[in-house]
């Protein structure tokens, strides 16, 4: 479980202070997937930077399984909007990077082979990121996160730079793999559709400084042919209302 209590983050730029998150509290239960939705600039990335241990200067208490965040002891998978691949490493080396840092070796085992195959990148192992399409690069980033076997998976608008067809394809692929491993996941998005499709719980954030407007159970999660159903339409309307009231 992730417990966030009274999390506040300020950025200091030149003379003025920007309050990015304002006394933010939430409990995220283990093995669940939460989508966080909110307008641009409301502090979504900031929240992920705190959870991934990149940003250490914050107020309040954040714990994962009752321990303070420490990326050295916890296994945290991070997937960013621009993929975060290292351009000097080929697909194989990029996909195994998490394991290399954490376990000290980058040998493939059955599990990593299986993940690479599921993501359809097992034939691209020798390519460098610049030789891949955006969708392929994001597949590599997803592979890296899953091969790490993370305790916590953090995704910051991972599909928003992709075209609509690739995006839906990857959403489905991601969800399929996710269901097999059910790793605790915080998924940031600014798309209502994506929040509905991928989140078992949906957290709606206010415009800057980010506060929680509402936490919803998502009845649409795991429904077949979701986008053609009434539940989808109803939830979508409900979300839109909350977001626009802000």
């Amino acid at each position: 479980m992730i417990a966030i209590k009274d999390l506040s983050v300020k950025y200091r730029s030149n003379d003025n202070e920007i309050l990015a998150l304002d006394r933010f509290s939430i409990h995220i239960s283990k093995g669940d997937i939460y989508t966080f939705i909110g307008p641009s600039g409301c502090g979504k990335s900031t929240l992920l930077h705190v959870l991934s241990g990149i940003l250490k200067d914050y107020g309040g208490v954040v714990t994962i399984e009752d321990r303070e965040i420490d990326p050295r002891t916890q296994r945290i998978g991070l997937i960013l909007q621009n993929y975060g691949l290292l351009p000097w490493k080929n697909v194989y080396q990029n996909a195994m990077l998490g394991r290399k840092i954490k376990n000290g070796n980058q040998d493939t085992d059955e599990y990593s082979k299986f993940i690479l195959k599921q993501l359809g990148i097992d034939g691209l192992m020798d390519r460098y990121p610049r030789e891949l399409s955006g969708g392929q690069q994001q597949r590599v980033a997803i592979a890296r996160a899953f091969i790490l076997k993370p305790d916590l998976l953090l995704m910051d608008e991972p599909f928003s730079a992709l075209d609509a067809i690739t995006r839906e394809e990857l959403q489905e692929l991601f969800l399929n793999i996710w269901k097999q491993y059910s790793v605790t996941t915080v998924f940031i998005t600014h798309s209502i559709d994506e929040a509905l499709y991928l989140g078992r719980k949906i957290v709606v954030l206010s415009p800057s400084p980010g506060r929680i407007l509402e936490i919803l159970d998502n009845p649409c999660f795991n429904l077949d042919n979701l986008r053609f159903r009434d539940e989808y339409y109803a939830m979508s309307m409900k979300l839109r209302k909350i977001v626009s009231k802000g």
Partner: protein
Amino acid sequence: MIKVLPKEKWQGALYSLAIVIVFWQLAAMIVKLPIVPSPWAVFINIIAIFASKIQIHVLYSLGRIMEGIAIAILIGVPLGFLMGYFYRMDRILSPLVYFTYPVPKIALLPVVMLLFGLGEASKLIMIVLIVIFQIIISSRDAVKAIPDETFRSLKSLGASKIQIFNEIILPASLGEVLTSTRLALGTAVSILFFTETFGTEYGMGYFIMDSWMRVNYLDMYAGIIILSLMGFCIFMLIDIIENLLCSWR
């Protein structure tokens, strides 16, 4: 596919060589003085005297320039990395670098010679002085140019400083460091020539000046050609290393 030396590069080099030889031949035919011998006479002379007279000088010059570059890299790269990674280091050292960078290093030659004598030390120090500034600045800038996001995925994995260095800083800046070394090479070769004209009896600089004194223009031209060829070979060597190590670009 790693292309170590693209075909176009070789072809380009051959064409420009051919053009130089044609103009040289024309000049020799027009001037008709011993100071401008024909290229063929010089090439034949090179074949005749290389093993007996030139080889040893090439080895000395090559040794000096390689040593100089190695020292400059060993000092310059870590310094540049520190300046690129730690903002405070940069704030303290950058003004120093910028202040000394534009000083024509050849102007320091008398000072270096007074302090370190006429021997090997001065020659090495001059080469290091020429090459090191470009290496410091380019390795610093290469580190600075790495986007924050590149570090983020590694930090979220809890990578240590050494891991960040190995996985990001080194590979990200290697190419720039090699490029700047290659660019500094031209100046390094000319300053090498200059420093070899005194205090030594070995080195291409010595050989060329000595041939000139002896009014042996064929030997002198042979020396000039071998020196240029030497520079070209080091240039190509760095190019090949760059292509091998940075094939991801």
